[in-house]
């Protein structure tokens, strides 16, 4: 057991898999010589050499296209998109090519690849470097979508993603990179599609992801002070989605609040709410409430950005509203 930052957990997870499997290679901007602009890939060039850890030009379509072509022909690439906002410049490769190839060919094409990206706000980087775009990925059939909240999950789910036979979009949260947590020694391999119940309570189910998990936990502890006991579920992966864990909890609590960083419309929260509104309708004791970023681009000033993203205080207020 060692304490590791979320940032260092990335390199550890990758190193574990690259050591095990020669077919794993990496490509991305500034990932090799510089160890990544977020320092998530430090040491990997030295350990695995320039054939396996490759700096690319600023050409996201080429990076992801190359990852796809390599995956179709026997490799297991890990590609990096530096900021998840940049998925917009290469979305065709992700949404139209990678996601659809297996289906269109009736299963002929294998695409064991991982695309890592730094996602989310809180760093005062402004509207083009702060988005939470995991809902973009979730809306495209054919992609798996993972977003860990702890260093241990980073290692374990990254390993699972690399071993997964399907394309996985792996969202690392920028504002969690500096956070620390205990990570067990030795090989670590998680399972995609298992939510984690981070806190158990009987009054309300709070579902969160990535950086919203610590905030939901903080909100839960404030709520506990007011006699409201929340279950906090960390989804960890959006596809596959652990509906069972959510539904079981809602059945017990009768109340659901989702906490997401996505802007208001069509986020993953809306999906979770819709599933529950259909499948657990008769278990619900009150309206379902989503806590989201308002439907605005993220502002850069710290005062405004803090206001935009769901805070523990806002979660508390919304939970109390949901409970009526």
């Amino acid at each position: 057991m060692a304490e590791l930052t979320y940032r260092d957990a990335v390199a550890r997870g990758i190193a574990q898999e690259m050591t095990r499997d020669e077919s794993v290679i990496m490509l991305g901007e500034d990932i090799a010589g510089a160890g990544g602009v977020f320092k998530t890939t430090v040491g990997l060039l030295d350990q695995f050499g320039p054939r396996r850890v490759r700096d690319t030009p600023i050409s996201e379509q080429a990076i992801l296209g190359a990852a796809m072509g390599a995956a179709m022909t026997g490799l297991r690439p890990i590609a990096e998109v530096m900021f998840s906002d940049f998925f917009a410049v290469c979305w065709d490769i992700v949404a139209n090519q990678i996601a659809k190839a297996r289906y269109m060919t009736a299963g002929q094409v294998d695409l064991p690849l991982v695309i890592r990206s730094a996602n989310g706000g809180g760093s005062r980087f402004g509207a083009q470097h702060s988005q939470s775009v995991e809902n973009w990925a979730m809306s495209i059939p054919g992609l798996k979508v993972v977003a860990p909240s702890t260093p241990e999950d980073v290692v374990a789910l990254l390993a699972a993603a690399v071993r997964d036979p399907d394309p996985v979009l792996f969202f690392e949260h920028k504002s969690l990179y500096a956070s620390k947590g205990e990570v067990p020694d030795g090989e670590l391999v998680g399972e995609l599609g298992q939510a984690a119940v981070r806190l158990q309570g009987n009054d309300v189910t709070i579902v969160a992801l990535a950086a919203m998990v610590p905030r939901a936990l903080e909100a839960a502890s404030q709520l506990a002070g007011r006699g409201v006991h929340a279950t906090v579920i960390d989804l960890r992966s959006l596809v596959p989605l652990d509906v069972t864990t959510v539904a079981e909890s809602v059945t017990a609590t009768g109340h659901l609040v989702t906490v997401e960083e996505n802007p208001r419309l069509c986020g993953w929260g809306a999906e979770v709410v819709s599933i529950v509104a259909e499948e657990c309708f008769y278990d619900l004791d009150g309206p379902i409430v989503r806590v989201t970023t308002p439907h605005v681009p993220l502002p850069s000033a710290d005062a405004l950005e803090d206001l935009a993203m769901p805070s523990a205080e806002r979660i508390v207020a919304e939970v109390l509203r949901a409970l009526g």
Partner: protein
Amino acid sequence: MTEPPDIDQRLTMFELMTDMRLFEKRAYDLFLQGLVKGTSHLSLGQEAIAAAFGAAMSENDWTFATYRGHAHTLARRVPMGPVMAELLGRDNGLMRGKGGSMHLTSVPHHMMGSYAIVGAHLPIAVGAALSASYRSSGQVAVCFFGDGTTNIGAFHEALNLAAVWQLPVVFVCENNLYMEYTAIGSVTAVARPAADRAGSYGLEPVVVDGNDADAVYAVAVAAMSRARAGDGPSLIEAVTYRHGGHSRADPGKYRPDDEVAAWLERDPIVSYRARLIAEGVDVALIEQIEAEAKAAVDAAVAEATAGAEPSADLLEMHVFADGGSSWRN
């Protein structure tokens, strides 16, 4: 630069071109009968390029094509029956009806897909070449695309990356002078849409008569061996013309009559047939090839029309590697 192809190669090319021509003409008939669904894009008139590469490539080399991919698929010896059945949307289709004409793929034949978004497959081909290079497999990725594709961003990114990493990929621009209904010359800053861009990637400009199978074969062989030798990518512009419209819905009326007529005169198959005979190939052999092609197409149509509609369970299959589409527990 290289030797002219030997007679076996030339007969192979003639055979491939004949297969392609008869196959697509029949597919067009079936479309007129309402049997081919969706859209389709024929290579009628452009066959020499696909055939020459088909002859020049080794079995393990990869093809990446566009929605205009029937010829390139047949060039890899993918059996005609499943291809025709795919155009008809049948369960015995190459992709069981899930892809259709625009997405022909046969991984066992190293036909790595037909891509319907302009430009997307260029970087994907680069990735295959990266894999070949990483594994020192000696394989080459060959990527076919149209003139219009040279103006999209993915073209630029793919060419640069392939050149920087000196990967074994051959980019083949089939310049048929038109995009869909608009002439390439009217929207391109240079006269030769591919060749005049080669310098941007440190590559030599290569232009070849795309209606002359022997000429295409020569540049194909050169580019393939350059790739295999580790000397990096090539960018070839093969000038050609499509006999018909862009897709099945298009009569192609935006093209001047005399331009169309001049190119019909230069039919790559008619002229190649004449050349082979003039150079001593027995007419009987030619006719035998033609008869075999016709028989193969007949058989393919029979196979395809006998196919069932795709079964309903296919709808939710093949999204993920486990065979299904489940995104939840």
